[in-house]
């Protein structure tokens, strides 16, 4: 008991053991690298979202299985740089506040489009509940009437998204596009992703009705993603909101921000909310990229994003390297033993994540691994959780070693300051 009290007391007082500084890696140089990576990764996200937009235009021009596959592939590719930016989310309020518009999840599909029969077709009482925006020009949710005759970016962003204050009324972002490209994953924890037919977007041979409005939706929501990413790219330029915020924190505060982002993503968000919770509930709804069955990649690139900001190195989508003075180097100089531990932690997380990719290649995607009674799957997923937790502990050791104040690694935004 007393040991625990003591541990907590130590954390609270943040006893430092900083050694004499060698000036070969300055804090501000580390921050410069961090910002350069943010700029490059958001730019890459924007570039690949524009590619996705082109692929979707091509698909809508000629909706068939081939063009649909291209569009889906473009979505998967667009996730790669975006997920690596998630290490910038926690600790940078400008990013965290914006994130809900582009990456909200889980989402209630019924708000957007038709869903499986379980949702019921009988709308006898539809003055109570008619969400499905694509099928309805006038919607009435929780007593709020919405004119949805024209599906426009404004309608989605300003009126429908989070309507009625309900967080799962997600109308915009990557996951809304994902749903529109794949449809519901009706395979539960069995293999297989969503399987929406290309004809859902056909004007001549329309399946599941309202293809014209579905097309409008897909077009509008993709356009919104692009403009949201444009905004974030701008935020990281000199003078942009995220850039200015970070500068105002000073160099110590800047390092604290980097480590907060790394620890919070690894621990509460990834290990806890996105992975452990799914394992606990055996619930495919807990799969982060659930319509496309792309969750293994989602976790993998999140972890890579953490590594990027620590190592001060990011490989762009065109293969170029963005590199500079890093926390890793600073630790090598200041606390070589701890630096070595951190490298080992990063490597073991990488190995655990690799195992997810290997399983996925065999058809055992994340939703299959978390099925109840899948003992082998549970082992693979647990290893990811454990290694992320170890990594976070070491991040905490680094925070102590650098004697940084005001760092709180939290699971998510809400109770962080209790």
């Amino acid at each position, binding site marked *: 008991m007393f040991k625990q009290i003591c541990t907590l007391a130590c954390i609270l007082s943040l006893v430092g053991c900083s050694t004499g500084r060698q000036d070969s890696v300055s804090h501000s140089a580390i921050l410069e690298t961090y910002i350069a990576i943010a700029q490059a990764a958001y730019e890459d996200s924007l570039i690949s979202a524009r590619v996705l937009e082109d692929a979707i235009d091509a698909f809508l021009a000629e909706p068939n299985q081939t063009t649909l596959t291209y569009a889906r592939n473009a979505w998967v590719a667009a996730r790669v740089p975006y997920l690596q930016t998630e290490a910038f989310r926690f600790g940078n309020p400008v990013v965290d506040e914006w994130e809900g518009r582009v990456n909200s999840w889980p989402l*209630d599909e019924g708000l957007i489009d038709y869903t499986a029969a379980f949702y019921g077709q009988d709308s006898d009482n539809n003055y109570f509940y008619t969400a499905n925006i694509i099928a309805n020009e006038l919607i009435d949710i929780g007593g709020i009437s919405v004119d949805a005759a024209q599906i426009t970016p404004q309608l989605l962003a300003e009126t429908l998204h989070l309507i009625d204050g309900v967080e799962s009324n997600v109308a915009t972002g990557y996951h809304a596009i994902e749903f529109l490209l794949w449809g519901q994953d009706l395979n539960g924890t069995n293999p297989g992703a969503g399987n929406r037919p290309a004809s859902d977007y056909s004007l001549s041979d329309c399946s599941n009705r309202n293809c014209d409005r579905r097309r409008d939706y897909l077009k509008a929501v993709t356009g919104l993603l692009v403009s949201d990413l444009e905004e974030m790219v701008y935020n990281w330029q000199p003078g942009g909101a995220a850039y200015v915020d970070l500068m105002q924190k000073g160099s110590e505060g800047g390092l604290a921000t980097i480590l907060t982002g790394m620890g919070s993503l690894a621990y509460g968000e990834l290990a806890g909310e996105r992975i452990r919770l799914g394992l606990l509930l055996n619930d495919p709804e807990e799969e982060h990229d659930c319509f496309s069955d792309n969750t293994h990649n989602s976790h993998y690139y999140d972890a890579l994003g953490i590594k990027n900001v620590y190592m001060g190195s990011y490989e762009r989508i065109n293969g170029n390297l963005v590199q500079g003075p890093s926390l890793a180097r600073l630790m090598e100089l200041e606390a070589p033993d701890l630096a070595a531990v951190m490298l080992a932690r990063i490597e073991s997380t990488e190995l655990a994540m690799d195992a997810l990719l290997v399983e996925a290649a065999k058809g055992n995607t994340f939703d299959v691994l978390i099925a109840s009674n899948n003992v082998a799957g549970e082992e693979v997923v647990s290893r990811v959780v454990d290694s992320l937790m170890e990594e976070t502990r070491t991040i905490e050791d680094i925070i102590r070693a650098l004697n940084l104040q005001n760092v709180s690694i939290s699971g998510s935004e809400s109770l962080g300051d*209790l």
Partner: protein
Amino acid sequence: MKLHLFIILLSWCIGSSSVAQDNPFAISEAGLDYLTGQALFEKIWVTAPSSTRASDGLGPLYNARSCAECHFQAGKGKLPAALTLRINSDFLGQQIQSSAIAGLPAEAQVELSYTSIVETLSDSTEVILKKPHYVLNYIQTETGRPERRQTEIEELSPRFAPALFGMGLLEVIPLQELLDKEDPKDHDNDGISGRAGPGRFGWKADVINLEQQTGKALSLDIGISSELFPNPFGDCTQLQDYCLSRPNGASREDQNLEIGPPGFATLLYFIRNIPLPVVNVNNMNTSGKEIFENIGCQHCHQIGYMQGAINPYTDLLLHDMGDALADSFDNELSREWRTPPLWGLSSYQENDEQYYLHDGRATNLLEAILWHGGEAEAAKLAFKSLSRSARQDLINFLQSI
């Protein structure tokens, strides 16, 4: 400064079996359990597709899709979302569910209105109190068609979502310490006759522990079945066949629960370990605290459990609070409410919309105190005759705990 945190630590030391032994705030298994439990608390339940064996998910009838929608950041909620209406109906069940999954009608839409009452304090300050009224629109009827006209329901008990700070500490107070404070026949003649309810949680002290309360909330408020409340239809009664006829997939034959035991245990772990807001003891208004004690507030809002380790400002007993606060249930409990804990009141910030009392009717502490009646009538009268500055001291004190 770290008083409350220390209290939490202390409660681990005391080592009651129901409070986890691990430090939920460290980066550890226990810490991850806490965070995962928090994620479950904030999890938005959605209607799962029919072929998902693991869960039917939300509903069919529900009030909200997550715990956090009503208990915002584990604190109080906001009106009207965090208000539930208990009823006593063979057809609609124990509670009005104002939402339903797609294709099903909600049980009713609740319309809230107020009438104003003016209270005058001894220094002739006037305070306007708002008494709530509830009207139900489109209430479902046994004909299968909703009633379009407005309906006033006879037996109705409104309940506003309370803050959940320190719940785990309230749970470990030994029962005997609570029973010692009972005085149902008012033998000490102080006008206050607290008595223990069947439990210590809920506004009617009718839920025995946090495990029951969590299971009940999942079932009644969100429509999620768990081991304790395994019915996947939540508060859908035998007579509501339109609701019972919803396909329930494989889950019934599987006895598959919408939240299994490990998930439930994790949520419960979080609920038991929600910390109190950190308060600065040096900022406590000591003259306000004295007034609180002198005018009799502490008869019900008690402190000093477990040798002074737990100071929640409640006796967790039921008190007759007078007609103005009564609900319209036809039983002897309608005027009785469990004293709510006052610790954690400091979590409201300056500009927050505030809600107090069992139905959230009071928008600030002054109003909350002026609604006191029944056994608390004497304390209220004493409060009304305080000078303006003494009143303010008392309120400052409440805001600092």
